[in-house]
């Protein structure tokens, strides 16, 4: 556990910034939870409530960016403080986009509301649950400064990618020529894509948490010198 800064005002600035990132993370987690429940239940009212929350997440992104800018300009942070600030700057973008994607799921839910869930949609629900767990663990790893937990988030991304790759043939199999079927498949395909991207954003957050804690850049493994020949 790192000791506190001698300058208590600086310590409070960083603590306040950390708190705002945690609040933003919690809001986005709630949005995703609501979006997945709205999708499963075809609950248009819940979907609209989730969409309403996106504005608050966007405001938090602006506020956190401004706080980071002020700390960079006035404190010239280095070492772990610098890694924390750069991580905050980057993960708020992932969180904001995750909020957008949760809102997009809700928009598709509103389109789908007349069409009851079908059994072949179940893999989408499972993908959603995995992505939700990844996001929860990525934010938890940020809060607890837990690099191994963040690394486990990264390891799960491939399973979501694989599930998404299997979704399109499944949907194709269940798509007939009528307008209703096409509309359903198109919306479901989009929801699957949004979830896959949410898992990517959770992975990005996990990578930044590893950097924040250990100072190690684990992005793009194939570009690192020790893996130069791997692609």
């Amino acid at each position, binding site marked *: 556990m790192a*000791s506190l800064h001698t300058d208590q005002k600086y310590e409070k600035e960083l603590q306040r910034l950390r708190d705002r990132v945690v609040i933003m993370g919690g809001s986005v987690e709630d949005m995703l939870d609501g979006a997945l429940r709205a999708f499963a239940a075809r609950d248009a009212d819940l979907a609209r409530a989730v969409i309403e929350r996106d504005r608050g997440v966007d405001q938090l992104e602006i506020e956190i960016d401004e706080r980071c800018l002020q700390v960079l300009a006035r404190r010239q942070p280095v070492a772990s403080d610098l890694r924390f600030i750069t991580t905050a700057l980057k993960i708020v973008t992932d969180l904001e986009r995750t909020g957008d994607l949760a809102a997009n799921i809700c928009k598709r839910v509103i389109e789908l509301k007349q069409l009851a869930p079908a059994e072949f949609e179940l893999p989408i629900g499972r993908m959603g649950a995995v992505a939700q767990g990844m996001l929860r663990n990525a934010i938890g790893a940020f809060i607890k400064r837990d690099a191994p937990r963040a690394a486990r988030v990264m390891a799960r991304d491939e399973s979501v990618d694989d599930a998404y790759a299997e979704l399109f043939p499944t949907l194709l199999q269940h798509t007939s020529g009528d307008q209703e079927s096409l509309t359903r498949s198109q919306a479901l395909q989009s929801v699957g894509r949004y979830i896959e991207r949410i898992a990517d954003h959770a992975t990005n957050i996990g990578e930044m948490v590893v950097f924040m804690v*250990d*100072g190690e850049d684990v992005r793009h493994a194939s570009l690192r010198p020790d893996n130069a020949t791997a692609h």
Partner: protein
Amino acid sequence: MTAIASSINAFRGVASSVPDATRPVETAAQSRLEVASKKIEVEKLHAFFGTAEVLKGIDLPIYSTKVTAIIGPSGCGKSTFVRCINRMHEVTRNARTTGRVLLDGRDIYARNVDAVTVRRRVGMVFQKPNPFPTMNIRDNVLAGLRLNGLSTRDGETIVEQSLSRVALWDEVKDNLGRSGASLSGGQQQRLCIARCLALEPEVILMDEPCSALDPIATARVEALINELRERYTIVIVTHNMQQAARVADFTAFFYMGELVEHDQTKVIFTRPGNQRTEDYITGRFG
């Protein structure tokens, strides 16, 4: 000791030596930059004022034509360290050292090494700009040569070259007869660096060279350091960590007379390997 007395002593000295044949400890920076050549190798360096030990066995390489910053809290031994590597430490009463400081592989504390020659090869710039107040600008530049009994036959060329290297020539070329003390603080510090360069040193030690300067003058000196690194090996003591981050290739963190960590500056300021370094540079030091 006054700043001016320090300045004069930088060109003069007495010999003493306590050689130590022990091998240096490899630092993280050394292992990461095996290709850079070492201008200076400090081995098991201990420094004392009377019975007080202010440096406790420092092993540190100083790489050729690189800038090495020495950082650490007050009293950690930063200034003593740089004064040991041009034999200025021994000028202070009751001060002594043990260990070795190898300059191009040769121990500067060996019995047959002349301290004055060492100080000519390893020049020094001090915290407070200290031009000799009774001398004009021209004589200030040539002061080191004269104090060392060296020829100033090519004085005009030396003056122009030295002042040009510190980007002061254009500002003072029409007023070389003016007192050095009439210049601004930043100009005075560049004049002192020019005085150091006139002796054609190989290494320049800078002990908080910008602490008395405003931000613009500081920026000029830092730009100058950036140019001087092409030809000279530079060691800079600084309390300003942003300055170390801006100008240094390597940074060494000292604490209570010990070298805690030495590495490339880009490593020290983003992911230091030692918790004490981390605490110091992030302002968590009690």
